């Protein structure tokens, strides 16, 4: 095992973690402000990828397409909040799970009707294609470095927004003292509208970042949704800091697990047993981690309150 391999696996883990953070950040904000479980967050990630892919194809320019696509994602976020989500905020969790499950089915099928089932094209912008040599023996794809950079920038921006601005203060307060915030004369429903739409845009950004790496098809949000939920409950629902730490943790564990667990098992239990157990164990790893963390800290790493 070479240093280059280890370094590149660590980078891979970080980069997966950063994508997970982008998805989970919106989810945890929405949960924090309104105690709202949004299963449809995964389809917002999917929509983001589609919107950006279409805008890039339409404008022929990646940067312009990205901006347009994200604005569209933001606009869709507003529309969906007004049409559906605001009517679910004061329902219990069960109804939120159910209603947003319905939204998943509807949006996924609608996208399939428009774009078909086949994955659509979402190429890496030409200037960011290929890979660079970080140090001898380690070539790393430029786009993955871009994702890392964008993710860290967004994390910084969110930290600033949440900790240094009035709206951020309200978001933080809203997650713990909803009545107090209402008593201050803040319209919590309006706050939720903006947070929701912003979260939808963040999910869209994650979709756009992941788009060049993965298959952009109508069900792409399904798997990421579950992992994003794992991230926010491990981090403590409602906590941006928790989401960040947990996203990196899970990105690392997942990647390093896939990278090294099969080899590790091979040396422990032999080749044939490892061949079957290895992939199973590495796919289970994040769920094991979650169960372990929640059994010790039932409200996640940074969760103050039990939901």
């Amino acid at each position, binding site marked *: 095992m070479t240093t280059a391999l280890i370094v590149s696996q660590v980078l891979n883990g970080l980069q997966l973690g950063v994508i997970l953070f982008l998805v989970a950040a919106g989810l945890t904000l929405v*949960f924090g402000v309104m*105690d709202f*479980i949004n299963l449809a967050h995964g389809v917002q990630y999917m929509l983001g990828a589609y919107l950006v892919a279409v805008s890039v194809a339409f404008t022929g320019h990646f940067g312009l397409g990205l901006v347009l696509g994200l604005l569209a994602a933001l606009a869709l976020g507003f529309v969906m909040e007004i049409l*559906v989500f605001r*009517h*679910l905020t*004061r*329902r*219990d*969790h*069960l*109804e939120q*799970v*159910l*209603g947003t*499950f*319905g*939204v*998943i*089915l*509807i*949006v*996924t*099928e*609608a996208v*399939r*009707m428009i774009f078909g089932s086949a994955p659509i094209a979402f190429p890496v912008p030409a200037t960011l294609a290929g890979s660079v040599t970080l140090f001898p023996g380690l070539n790393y794809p430029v786009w993955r470095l871009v994702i890392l950079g964008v993710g860290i920038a967004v994390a910084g921006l969110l930290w600033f927004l949440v900790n240094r601005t009035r709206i951020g203060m309200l978001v933080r307060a809203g997650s713990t003292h909803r009545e107090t915030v209402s008593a201050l004369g803040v319209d919590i429903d309006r706050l939720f509208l903006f947070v929701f739409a912003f979260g939808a845009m963040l999910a869209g950004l994650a979709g756009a970042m992941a788009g060049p790496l993965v298959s952009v098809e109508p069900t792409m949000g399904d798997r990421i949704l*579950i992992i994003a*939920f*794992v991230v926010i*409950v491990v981090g403590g*629902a409602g906590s941006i800091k928790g989401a960040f730490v947990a996203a990196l943790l899970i990105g690392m564990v997942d990647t390093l697990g896939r990278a090294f667990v099969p080899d590790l098992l091979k040396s422990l239990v032999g080749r044939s047993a490892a061949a*079957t*157990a290895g*992939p*199973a164990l590495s*796919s*289970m790893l994040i*769920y*094991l981690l*979650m*169960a372990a963390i*929640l*059994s010790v800290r*039932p*409200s*996640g790493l940074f*969760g103050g309150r*039990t*939901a």
Partner: protein
Amino acid sequence: MSPLAPAPAVPRPRAGIGQTAALMALLAAALALAYGLGSSYGAGLVTRTAILALAAVSLSFLIGQAGLVSFGHAAPLGIGAYAVLIAGEYDMTNILAVLPLAFGAAALFALATGAIALRTRGVYFIMITLAFAQMVFYVAASLSAFGGDDGMAIAARSTFFGARILKPDLHLALLAIALLAAAALGLEHLAASRYGLMLRAGRENETKLEALGLDPYRHRLIAISVAGGIAGVAGALLANQVEYVSPSTMNWHLSGELIVMVVLGGSRRLGGAVIGAMVVVLLDEALGRFTEHWKLGLGLVILGAVLFRGAEVRALLGKFSHG
């Protein structure tokens, strides 16, 4: 639960028995009708409805009585199905052994994971149950001796000391309805008992129950295990009907659909889950015939049901339904 929602009416379990009996009669009548018309397909549909209703009833007990929203109920169901498959591979097909095995294995799983999951609340509980179900999914997918991700056909339907009593679809249908009736009535009985009263008290007001000296943990653990065991039996029946077992049985979408059934039919009464199962199975069927994009329709129905169960509508309907 949302602090702003009005306190929900608590189930009056005894009142549900009449409804349950009516539903069983309806299923049996549908089965008889299907056979009368020679529609073995219709009979299969009734069987499937009864099996899913069995799983949904057990989930309804968890949600409606214990207040525990499990998003991983497909896991014990799948374990029950795998119990049939695995036991069959070891030539164990006697139904008197297989059903208890399915119940036991699923209940044991529910007990073990529930013991950890019950440390959490609210959204954490929803997610940790999902996580455990995903783990089982991946374990099943790695069981290469039993088909791995593809799954495999069961050796044969369950027997009764060698007699292939489940070979005729009618027998399987009757067994499914009988077990559903037994489970529904058993759970109604349980809900009315002292245990059930305390379980609901814990759902309604955990703080008070603790202040009265009772930690509802064990009550809930029992509820989770019983519900898991029943779901396991449903899984065993499903394996017998389909004669094929695969990890896709444990797909999280099935967990979601079971919740849909419970809520659609109303979680106040266990019979609601039976109604919900009927509605979902038929909706699948009707929409699937109608369009390739049937999931769009299903989504609209679910969302509509959640959005438009407004107080006004209910008040209006309430006059007729509770009169």
